[in-house]
């Protein structure tokens, strides 16, 4: 039986030689086996995972907002139902990931606290506004598409609970991308105004979605260690290239253009040539100065505070039931 909480002895080895534990850990990673919650692991590995998994969970939870915002205005009952299912999936994905992070010895409350006090990060993509219905299409196609590209290799991450959460997430995520693609296709083939709306959304989301893969490899200080630990399997630039390669033929089917005049396949390098990414914008948004940062966090904080009575009532009820059972026994 694999349990999903860290054992005290794994957190604080006593007596055992740390060098020996380290050697056993290294051997498991080397053999492409998985580390499980009750195994000893280096503190830096645990910290890296907590940071990465909780950021990922926060991204799912914050990611509910730009789309939740459109549920009441989606153009048909079918589209409303689809959008609700997608937003519900995102809540579910957040919970899988919080559970995975909790196996590393951080509590859910602690993570929530870090998020609503802006001490934890989430994907900066959710700090962009969603002014039109076509944005729902562009988010599904580009943002979820980039997320899938990032997440598929994470299914093989060396930490068992993280990999397993990612397997579930990836299975569910592919519907997200397809429904987005379909929204854009319908708009693109609709009236000239609808086509224009679709193109405008793609223009606004294309670059931010490429930024989702993170800084270029030579400016990504933590990447090498994460790759050595087999948490990360491919570099930021490798994944970005792969993603662009998938988008090009898809954009043709959509009848929309990707907003980069310099985008072309380079036979010599076997890579996509593209314009320079505007990383100043990325760092601005990351630093909390994006269009919607404050609004997203405020909304999350309000939801958390307004839901406090529900959590308290549930705990009080559980306590009362338990007391009753004790009396009956």
């Amino acid at each position, binding site marked *: *039986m*694999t*349990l*999903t*909480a*860290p*054992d*005290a*002895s*794994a957190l604080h080895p006593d007596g055992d030689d740390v060098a020996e534990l380290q050697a056993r850990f290294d051997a498991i990673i080397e053999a492409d086996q998985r580390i*499980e919650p*009750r*195994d*000893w692991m280096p503190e830096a590995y645990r910290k890296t995972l907590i940071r990465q998994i909780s950021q990922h969970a926060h991204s799912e939870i914050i990611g509910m907002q730009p789309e939740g915002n459109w549920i009441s205005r989606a153009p048909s009952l079918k589209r409303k139902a689809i959008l609700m*299912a997608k937003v*519900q*999936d995102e809540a*579910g994905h957040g*919970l*899988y990931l919080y*559970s995975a992070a*909790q*196996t590393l*010895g*951080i*509590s*859910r*409350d*602690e993570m929530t606290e870090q998020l609503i006090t802006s001490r934890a990060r989430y994907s900066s993509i959710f700090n962009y506004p969603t002014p039109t219905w076509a944005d729902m299409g562009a988010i599904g196609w580009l943002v979820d598409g980039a997320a899938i590209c990032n997440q598929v290799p994470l299914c093989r991450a060396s930490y068992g609970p993280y990999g*397993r*959460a990612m397997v*579930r997430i990836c299975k*569910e995520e592919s519907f997200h991308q397809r429904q987005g693609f379909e929204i854009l296709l319908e708009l693109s083939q609709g009236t000239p105004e609808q086509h224009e709306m679709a193109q405008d959304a793609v223009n606004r989301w294309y670059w931010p979605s490429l930024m989702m893969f993170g800084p270029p490899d030579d400016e990504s200080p933590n990447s090498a260690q994460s790759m050595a630990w087999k948490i990360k399997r491919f570099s930021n630039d490798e994944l970005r290239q792969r993603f662009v390669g998938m988008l090009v033929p898809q954009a043709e089917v959509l009848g929309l253009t990707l907003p980069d005049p310099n985008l072309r396949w380079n036979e010599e390098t076997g890579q996509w040539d593209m314009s320079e990414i505007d990383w100043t914008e990325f760092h601005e948004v990351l630093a909390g100065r994006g269009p919607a940062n404050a609004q997203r966090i405020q909304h999350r904080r309000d939801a958390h505070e307004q839901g406090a009575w529900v*959590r308290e009532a*549930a*705990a009080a*009820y*559980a306590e009362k*039931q*338990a007391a009753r059972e004790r009396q009956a026994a």
Partner: protein
Amino acid sequence: MSTPGDVAGEGWPLYEVFVRANRGLSHVHVGSLHAPDDDMALRNARDLYTRRNEGVSVWVVRSSAITTSDPDMKGAFFESPAGKNYRHAKYYEKSAEVPHL
């Protein structure tokens, strides 16, 4: 040994979730969640792990109720397979060509 699932600062107890995909199959561990009590754990498990017809039955059990083997005792706790391949059918080669054996 500490109670597994007993993470300091965690308000609600940890539950392990098992789902039976179809009649005739075992319940399989699918993940975990925190909930204030058993009923809420079951409802949350349904919402979280069976949004797409993944199961016909769900079990939730408090992690603290599960007794586990010690991960560090692996070698000593489990039967050593060394030299005991006679426990597997493949060990018996003389019957390899004989039908239905």
